[in-house]
């Protein structure tokens, strides 16, 4: 089996629990991400999603384990791994345009000022920010616009891996919908590999090629890897019509609602905990799944 583009190997994170012992957030978490893949990770608060994200970004060090990208272990932050933070993290004293050029200048120091600005405007336009609005400071932009700037800044740098840390968590549902589609649009034009944390099941189904499911902490692990068998291009209004949509959604809801608790806290005997691959496709003759059987369809009220 060839190594995936990004390989997370036996990642363990422990913190002192304040009483002399240690608190293991997750242990021996291993998974891989292929080049060009869009992967979402779902799990309850406290299972260590953000810690995994920070380790991938190089902003935190795991207690043990390695992250390999293109076969090389990564350490420390790098321009190859772009991050979109939940709270936008725009520099408030710079205009939207300058926030994007800030990133481009760091990525391509040899570019001329004109080229940098043209590139920045190009990417701002891709997320729907054109005209005078690019000269506004973040405080003069709405939450949705700020996150658009943040996304433009990340994509403009062409990182090998793009990390999105609950990028739409602070936005209202309507704005979230529009920006999700913009994200899909800007992503589909690239071969960008994306790893995204989210709390929103529908968002994950809309965006992802694959969804990683985490059990509850402590001793959280990445238990399943669910393939999203809905063809692209997807749109929010159309995917709900797809026969696989509710099958997948129910599986996710059931996992997060129940099995994430049941599977929680089990210290594993297997040192290398690769997630089980789950493939749900009701259009195929009888569901072809590896591992667990798909749960029956049922109404969900979440």
């Amino acid at each position, binding site marked *: 089996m060839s190594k995936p583009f990004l390989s997370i190997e036996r990642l363990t994170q422990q913190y002192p629990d304040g009483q002399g012992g240690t608190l293991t957030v997750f242990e021996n978490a291993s998974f891989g991400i292929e080049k060009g893949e869009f992967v979402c990770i779902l799990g309850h608060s406290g299972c260590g999603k953000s810690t995994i994200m920070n380790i991938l970004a190089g902003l935190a060090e795991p207690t043990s384990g390695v992250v390999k990208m293109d076969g090389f272990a990564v350490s420390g*932050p*790098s321009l190859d791994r772009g*991050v979109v*933070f939940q709270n936008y*993290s725009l*520099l*408030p*004293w710079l205009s939207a345009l300058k926030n994007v050029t800030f*990133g481009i200048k760091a990525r391509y120091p040899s570019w001329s000022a004109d080229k940098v600005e043209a590139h920045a405007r190009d990417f701002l336009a891709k997320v729907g920010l054109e005209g005078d609005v690019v000269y506004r400071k973040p405080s003069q932009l709405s939450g949705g616009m700020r996150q658009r700037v943040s996304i433009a800044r990340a994509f403009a740098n062409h990182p090998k891996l793009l990390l999105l840390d609950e990028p739409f968590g602070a936005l209202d549902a309507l704005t979230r919908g529009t920006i999700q589609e913009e994200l899909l649009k800007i992503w589909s034009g690239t071969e960008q590999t994306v790893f995204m944390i989210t709390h929103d099941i529908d968002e994950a189904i809309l965006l992802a090629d694959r969804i990683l499911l985490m059990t509850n902490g402590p001793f959280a692990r990445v238990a399943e890897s669910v393939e999203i068998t809905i063809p692209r291009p997807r749109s929010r209004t159309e995917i709900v019509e797809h026969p696989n949509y509710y099958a997948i959604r129910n599986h996710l809801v059931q996992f997060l609602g129940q099995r994430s608790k049941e599977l929680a806290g089990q210290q594993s005997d297997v040192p290398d905990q690769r997630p089980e691959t789950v493939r749900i496709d009701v259009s195929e003759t009888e569901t072809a799944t590896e591992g667990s059987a798909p749960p029956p369809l049922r109404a969900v009220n979440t």
Partner: protein
Amino acid sequence: MLDNLSVNKRAAILSIVMLVVGLLIWEAAIPAQKAAGELTEYERLTGGGAQKAGVPPPSQVIVKAWQELSNPFYDAGPNDKGIGIQIGYSIYRVLSGYFLAALVAIPLGFLIGMSQTAYKAFNPFIQVLRPISPLAWMPLALFIIQDSEASAIFVIFVCSIWPMLLNTAFGVAGVREDWVNVARTHELGALKTAFTVILPAAAPTIVTGMRISIGIAWLVIVAAEMLVGGTGIGYYVWNEWNNLDLTSVIFSILMIGVVGMMLDAVFGVLQRAVAYAE
């Protein structure tokens, strides 16, 4: 009638009314000197005809101010220089001491703000040195430096260093982790991070410290110049007191206020320039 005016206009009218009323009360409160002709024989014999020193009425102060301000830069010997020259000396001393202090305080504040160890190592010294009245350094400074001019500048240096140092450290330490992470994920070096992220982020706090410092420096220079003498607005006040020329004393007090206000206004402009909204 007043209802139609903006808040600013109403405030301006009220200020002028307060000024005029205040001046009138002051003017009326000063008893007029009796003319020599009205004195009784007894009063003349006991020296009652000599001018008594008294607080001058505002009208005299205004006349004095007009005289001084219409020729501010004359120089008629060490004891008689124009108000412009005196203020010029004071400003020169304040700015020299102040910029030397900024040169030390801002880089040092950066270091203290960025490093816990540096903060803890420097803190005891800062806590002991900060409450010392800058004028208490004067004898030591005069003895070591052996130059009254340089000693005055040193006193300004000592008094303006603390607010700048502490505010810089505070501002740098308070820079949001997210912004530092933005710098880290963009692989900015330490120096680049300091100048493109931490400095603009901490600038409002740093400039606030600089504004407090210049205010304190201007307060202290008057006292320092009273001690070292020779030139400067502080010396001028003290000299006019020795001459018992209270009109000049009141005039120079007003000038100290006006110059202080202008120095503060400059930093107010700077503060607005570096301010940002989150």
